[in-house]
């Protein structure tokens, strides 16, 4: 037999035996397991949330936004598009011009005016879909294929088309569109008839012919539907605010609201709806209703103008920041209303161009290329990440902080291993003496405990990996079970952007978690191992 070798076999055997007989050490394995599992689940869920949010943000925003600093915008978007094409056309998939201005949206709900601050965005329905996932967020199936600002003859989704479970339900949208509009017109007509019948009955005996003529003229002439003049209360306190008052003459003739509409708009669904306790979406206004929007004109100083618009669809991106702020309108209508078309040349102005890049394009490189061509004092060129930088940075920071905190769980497990190993070294003092008497080296003795720590780390990390992946893959089923047990909602889709908890399992992240857990477990056994190695053989043998 070899007379000069010192081997490792006894370390493996003793590590394995200690693992099987020292149950107290399994307590530290459990904490490593829980720490690893928790980190896997949290990282997967956070990655899922972050990815979903970025996908939605990116789906709404184009890759690069090219915009002017001024509300008046810049002239000749076509020339700008050609210049952008010349500078970075090899990486560009599509472009569309937009006009965006802050505005006030007003609509009536049961006779009361409701006003919301919005971002009024003029888009080109032919080219906007090239740069944005805008279309898929609309409520009418035909509009999702090709956006139109014309009111539809019904057919709006009565459930959330983006939710696989087809909830919540939206029964109010069943008759949205022209049916709803016609019904409102008919109700207005009947209301007017009732009012006039009542008036005529009251004044029948006392009115002169002239007064009767005046009354007829007054009843049939166009009315000013501004909020300030629409109040009208009867003697008995009944409000005479006409909730159906929308029509006004266009081009010298009375508009027939049952057959005609104003310029169509698509507001965010958050502006006009809310969800009740039963999970049904209630709408304050529907496609087919008319609203008023007040916005500034182009030019210096800007003036406030108002106009009527007809809601033709709703936009639902699941991002409340957009769903409660954006209102989309045809760009040419907005340009005309704001005076953004040069009366002499007919060349319109826009204040931004949305750019979508090809899949393999380099985002920052294209941005920087455009910044070299277009002066920064006139134009602001930013990527979608730049625009949402604070939000994305906040999410990244949250993830980083969470990971640090969760890693502390594993660090605590490491301290547990440290304490337990010190205890085992004391317990095994005599055995260490025996091993040294049999020729085991000090480093070999240390290796037993380091190996033990490594085994515990591998065992804990492995169990944590299995547990973490199991939870992650079944997280929505677990959520349902918890909600069933507790009777309360764990994950409310109305708060978050999605209906199921999204998860993304990243092998690299999981790899780092596993490695970190093993390093902590093994590292925690170093001090006890060194202590064991330094024991004096004779003193150890005498240990009681």
């Amino acid at each position, binding site marked *: *037999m*070899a*007379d*000069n*070798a*010192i*081997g*490792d*076999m*006894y370390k*493996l*055997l*003793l590590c394995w*035996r*200690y693992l099987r*007989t020292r149950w107290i050490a399994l307590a530290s394995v459990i904490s490593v397991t829980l720490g690893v599992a928790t980190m896997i689940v949290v990282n997967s869920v956070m990655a899922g949330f972050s990815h979903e949010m970025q996908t939605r943000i990116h789906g709404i925003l184009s890759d690069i936004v090219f915009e002017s600093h001024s509300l008046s915008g810049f002239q000749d978007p076509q020339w700008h598009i050609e210049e952008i094409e010349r500078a970075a056309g090899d990486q560009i998939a599509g472009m569309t011009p937009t006009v965006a201005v802050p505005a006030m949206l007003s609509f009536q709900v049961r006779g009361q005016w409701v006003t919301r601050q919005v971002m009024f965005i003029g888009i080109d329905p032919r080219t906007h879909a090239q740069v944005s996932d805008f279309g898929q967020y609309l409520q009418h199936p035909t509009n999702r294929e090709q956006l139109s600002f014309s009111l539809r003859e019904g057919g709006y989704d009565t459930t959330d088309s983006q939710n696989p479970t087809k909830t919540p339900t939206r029964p109010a949208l069943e008759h949205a569109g022209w049916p709803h509009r016609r019904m409102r017109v008919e109700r207005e007509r009947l209301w007017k008839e009732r009012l006039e019948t009542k008036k005529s009955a009251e004044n029948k005996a006392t009115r002169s012919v002239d007064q009767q003529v005046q009354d007829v003229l007054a009843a049939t002439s166009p009315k000013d539907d501004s909020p300030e003049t629409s109040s009208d209360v009867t003697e008995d306190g009944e409000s005479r605010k006409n909730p159906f008052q929308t029509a006004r003459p266009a081009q010298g003739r009375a508009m027939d609201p049952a057959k005609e509409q104003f310029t169509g708009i698509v507001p965010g669904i958050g502006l006009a709806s809310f969800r009740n306790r039963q999970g049904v979406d209630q709408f304050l206004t529907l496609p087919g209703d008319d609203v008023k929007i007040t916005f500034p004109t182009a030019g210096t100083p800007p003036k406030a103008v108002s106009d009527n618009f007809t809601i033709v669809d709703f936009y639902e991106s699941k991002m409340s920041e957009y769903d409660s702020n954006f209102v989309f309108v045809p760009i040419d209508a907005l340009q005309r209303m704001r005076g953004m078309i040069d009366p002499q040349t007919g060349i319109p102005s826009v204040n931004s161009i949305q750019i979508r890049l090809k899949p393999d394009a380099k985002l920052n490189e294209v941005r920087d290329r455009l910044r070299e061509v277009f002066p920064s004092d006139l134009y602001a060129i930013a990527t979608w990440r730049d625009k949402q930088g604070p939000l994305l940075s906040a999410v990244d920071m949250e993830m980083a902080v969470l990971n640090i905190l969760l890693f502390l769980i594993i660090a605590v497990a490491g301290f547990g291993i440290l304490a337990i190993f010190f205890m085992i070294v004391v317990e095994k003092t*005599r*055995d260490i*003496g*025996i*091993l*040294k*008497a*049999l*020729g*085991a*080296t*000090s480093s*070999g003795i240390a290796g037993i405990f380091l190996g033990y720590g490594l085994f515990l780390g591998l065992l804990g990390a492995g169990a944590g990996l299995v547990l973490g992946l199991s939870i992650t893959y079944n997280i929505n089923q677990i959520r349902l079970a918890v909600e069933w047990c507790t009777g309360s909602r764990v994950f409310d889709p109305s708060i978050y952007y999605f209906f199921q908890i999204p998860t993304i399992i990243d092998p690299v992240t999981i790899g780092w978690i596993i490695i970190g857990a093993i390093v902590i477990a093994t590292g925690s056994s170093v001090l006890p191992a060194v202590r064991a190695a330094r024991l*004096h*053989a*004779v003193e150890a*043998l005498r240990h009681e």
Partner: protein
Amino acid sequence: MLETRQVCKQYQSGTTTLEVLRGVDFTLEKEGFLAVVGQSGSGKSTLLHVMGLLDAPDSGEVWINGRRIDNLPVREKDRLRNSSIGMVFQAYHLLPELTALENVLAPLLIRYGIFDWFTQRRAAQEKAEELLDRFGLSDRLHHRPRQLSGGEMQRVAIARALITDPQVLLADEPTGNLDEESGAGIIEALAELNQDKGLSIVLVTHDADIASQARGIVRLAAGIVDIMNSGAADSAA
């Protein structure tokens, strides 16, 4: 074949210095069987520990087969303890997590790496089983120490000490925790090993009857050797 020259060893206890060995000269011839006797505290176990390289002398020398070993590097001393020196203790000192067979194999498990073990495993196990069979423990191969009697544990310890074919066996009060009959059996086994296998043995005991079964006796008193019996013993002034 085993020799100590003017070995001194002292221990510090607070401000007190305790001289346990004060210049011990000791010689064990090849195939010798010496008993080291003395009162409690005379330094018997300390001498054994120094000879077995478990403790280093403060001065003096330890030689084995003409080679000085007390000044070797730590690694070399570990190898010597593993291969050339077998030790048996009063408290048996078996590893409680290992079976009797694994305890006997322990020195080889320390010696072999993983690859070597898989090539040497069969031969090693056969030898261990043969040793345990010689000591009447063939039906105790897979018993843990807590399942063995004192005498059985001591025999396992002796088998463990022999598995590496050591040049010398150092036994420190091997019958101290055993009854008379078991103790006699152990001494008989040691005597047989010395007579039949020519194994050199140093036996530390406080029992005169047991000591008389050795071929020579060395008495330690206050850290100094007294010769009690001629033969393999040497004297020191």
